[in-house]
């Protein structure tokens, strides 16, 4: 693994630790109450709001450029159940 990749993995770990320490510790300064999710529940606020557009774009850019992927899934939304 070269130095750049090591730094990237480290950077990500750093971000996760910052988020984790503020949210998971129950300090909950980040986030909203369960009844305050009306905006986050909207279709246009979903991370996978347009799955077809995303997959069609990914296919085009995968075919035409040297890098692909990385976008992922999960989280946000109404937070129900």
């Amino acid at each position: 693994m070269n130095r750049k990749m090591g730094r990237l993995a480290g950077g990500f770990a750093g971000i996760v630790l910052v988020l984790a320490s503020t949210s998971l510790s129950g300090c909950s300064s980040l986030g909203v109450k369960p009844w305050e999710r009306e905006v986050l529940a909207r279709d246009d606020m979903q991370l996978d709001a347009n799955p077809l557009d995303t997959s069609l774009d990914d296919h085009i850019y995968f075919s035409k450029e040297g890098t692909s992927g990385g976008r992922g899934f999960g989280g946000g939304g109404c937070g129900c159940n």
Partner: protein
Amino acid sequence: MTSNRAMLNFFRPALAGAVVALLACANAVAAPPTLDLAQYRGRVVVVDFWASWCKPCRQSLPWLNEMRARYGEQGLVIIGVNVDAQRADADRFLRDVPVDFEIIYDAQGALAQQIGLQSMPSSFVYDRDGKLAHTLQGFREARRAEHESQIQTLLAGKS
């Protein structure tokens, strides 16, 4: 100078009116909706928090209608607390999913805050003595039967 005075004379009462209206509004909003369970002593009360944007509520509210229909005579009371920020959204939802029980509007979430709401939707079930017996967090089809038997058990309890 005179025209300024005239303008002031016009705007002052208008401004006063606006301020009074705003204060009245502020007071109306500042006072949170009240939920006094004492009046239901002797009956089993389900306080259900729901919102138009909560997808499982499309299943939970009809289920609550069913419980009300089946056990209302045995002393089951259902109170729905709506936490929509906009009343219009709640009304639109109720047009699609009508309910047979009382709705309290808690747009600012004061009741939700007070009761310690942890998830949406949530049902707080109180026994005939007014004590909190169960907190049902979320709504899953798979647990309908379990919830119903919990209600039956509470209804069977003495007042």
